[in-house]
């Protein structure tokens, strides 16, 4: 089985989608000739021509707004926002336009498009290259929001997102682009080439939207995680010796309540982890869902471990990032409650 980095897997997904469907177009800042600042689109312009993959002016509003128009025309744009932190100028086009077009026109116009953006911290990117804005999308009716945690899922989810007939926000954790990351920033990274989840089949396949994956089966406590935090949770389980069941949500909306509820019914305990800030974060939704659907199975309060409610700092990155020590303490707290 060939192994790929997450960057290569993302590129492969677009390459395959562009080969299979000539309506798929890819554009964004530095995306065309250069191939993107993270190299996710490297070679696509050479392969498919500048009508299919091209550079845009520095205008996130323009990128997404033009994509809405193209999608209404009948194309399937897959655009890149260089960092998720840069998406705010495009937010109105995402929330008021792409997300609602099908609804407000009663299906006369739709927005089958993907807005792909690198998300999360762990790269000393400071407050403008580290944010995790997923809750700003899961709050919006009409959007689907995806966060892969490994190259296999990144490719399969991105192909599924491009083929989906509704707008999909694809948040790729940039800290995972070249290898998994368990939160121990002072240890060497295992590259995807040496990691079993770096195995990515050639050719077309999809990972269905709306389906979670159980990364580690366990009986003591359920951990709900996505993106980078899946590896942090795995590290915390290993270090504490707690038999955690770690669920990688993969798609945040629509979420996979069946998998979540079945696990919490089994373990009776739940820890929710994400990098994004705590208050009104997606963890609040998960916590409420567990309470609403699993209350009579719960033996302890749901615990959340997240980034602090501060802007993402630079020098204090590893004080901010919810690493394995914090997650481990939360696992113990859930077990001891």
């Amino acid at each position, binding site marked *: 089985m060939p192994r790929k980095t997450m960057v290569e897997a993302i590129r492969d997904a677009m390459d395959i989608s562009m080969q299979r469907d000539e309506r798929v*177009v890819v554009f964004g800042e530095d995306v065309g000739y250069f191939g993107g600042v993270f190299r996710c689109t490297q070679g696509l312009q050479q392969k498919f021509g500048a*009508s*299919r993959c091209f550079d*845009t*002016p520095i*205008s996130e*509003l*323009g990128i997404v*707004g*033009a*994509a*809405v*128009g*193209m999608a*209404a*025309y*009948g*194309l399937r744009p897959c655009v890149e926002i260089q960092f998720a932190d840069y998406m705010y*100028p495009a937010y*109105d*086009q995402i929330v*008021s*336009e792409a997300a609602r*077009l*099908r*609804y*407000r*026109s*009663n*299906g*006369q*116009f*739709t927005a089958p498009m993907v807005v792909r953006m690198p998300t999360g911290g762990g790269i000393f990117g400071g407050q403008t290259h580290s944010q995790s804005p997923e809750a700003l999308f899961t709050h919006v*009716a*009409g959007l*689907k929001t995806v966060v892969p945690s490994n190259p296999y899922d990144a490719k399969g989810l991105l192909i599924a997102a491009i083929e*989906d*007939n*509704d707008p999909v926000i694809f948040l790729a954790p940039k800290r995972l682009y070249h290898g998994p990351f368990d939160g121990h920033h002072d240890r060497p990274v295992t590259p995807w080439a040496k990691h079993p989840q770096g195995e990515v089949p050639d050719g077309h396949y999809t990972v269905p939207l*709306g389906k979670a994956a159980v990364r580690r089966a366990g009986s003591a406590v359920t951990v709900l995680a996505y993106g980078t935090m899946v590896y942090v949770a795995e590290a915390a389980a290993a270090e504490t010796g707690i038999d955690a069941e770690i669920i990688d949500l993969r798609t945040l*909306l*629509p*979420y996979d*309540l069946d998998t979540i509820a079945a696990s919490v019914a089994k373990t009776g305990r739940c820890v929710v982890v994400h990098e994004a800030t705590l208050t009104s974060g997606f963890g609040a939704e998960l916590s409420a869902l567990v309470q609403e659907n699993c209350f009579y199975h719960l033996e302890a309060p749901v615990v959340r471990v997240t980034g602090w409610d501060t802007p993402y700092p630079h020098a204090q990155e590893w004080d901010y990032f919810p690493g394995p020590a914090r997650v481990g303490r939360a696992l113990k707290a859930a077990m001891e409650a």
Partner: protein
Amino acid sequence: MSDPKPLSFHVPAPAVRPGGTPDFSDVPISRAGEVRRPEVDTAPEEIRDLAYAIIRVLDRDSEAVGPWAGLLSDDELLEGLRHMITLRAFDARMQMAQRQGKTSFYMQHMGEEAVSCAFRSALEPGDMNFPTYRQAGLLIAGGYPMLDMMCQIYSNELDPLKGRQLPVMYSSREHGFFSISGNLATQYIQAVGWAMASAMRRDTRIAAGWIGDGSTAESDFHAALVFASTYKAPVVLNIVNNQWAISTFQGIARGGSGTFAARGLGFGIPALRVDGNDYLAVHAVAKWAVERARRNLGPTLVEYVTYRVGAHSTSDDPSAYRPKTESDAWPLGDPVLRLKNHLIRRGVWSEERHKQGEAEIMASVIAVQKEAERHGTLHAGPHPSARDMFEGVYEETPPHLRRQRQQGGI
């Protein structure tokens, strides 16, 4: 160095407010026939003057004069007049229906009928408009059933949009009318994206974006001009300058720019200003811009100089911010009257036929209205079902929405 003088803060204000005497004598108005008509492939830098003039065809004697005249036949002009009268009658009935409590909201076109009606006749089937809420003439002149418009306004059981949209936020892909957002300016960059897609696919269809004077201040306007300019998108970018953005006069959005059209010049986009109350001029300029787009010569920015005679919407009271007689003083007159007088001058129309035509059109609008009301009004129903509220959020209703619908007993 001596102490600098204190700075002063500048807030533009209209020349006259309620109680004052309207005066547009300082508004430069080109004479009809005066402005040249360049070839459509003329370089943008050679026609920068057109962003400051006003292209006009109908003169004070109701003659069509100058290089932009002579495009439309008697029948086409009579058809245009019929469209404008229809739109005005439609507006009158729907405005009244809102006052009678049959719907929540309405926006009329009084004074601006020529802009959308005459533009529509310059398009080909398959072209796509990205309109604002004051271009219903695109639908009326484009043959969209008035019954569907009324049912949308009433949010009744036949509402094509299932009761989900505010009145007048129509949508018809078939008639080249993109779903109206209600958020301002968002559609402008979408029009450019649609046009880019058409060019990318080597199609022949073109797009038209629409925006008002006030919302040119939105970032979407700027993004649209950047993208249109960069990719030479086959799009006509229309600015309807009706002088008022609710209570805010156009000088607040225009700032130090001489005209709204002039905003296009920095982007290298040909920019034309046209008398928006002159059906013939609007059509001629629209044709010119549409041909440019169709011949792959790129975008054109067109400013229609007009005047919003009515209130912004049924929720607005213009007497609070402008003199009641201001519309009478507006120097470009009434578009329906001007075309009527021109047709009389051409010898193909008369006062009597006009009166008769207006009465016939009003009767037919009332007949459609009665038919629409048989299918319900917002306040009396029947409406689209509560179940319709949950449909169409996604292609397939996801589990969480299904659960919510069940919880709601719907």
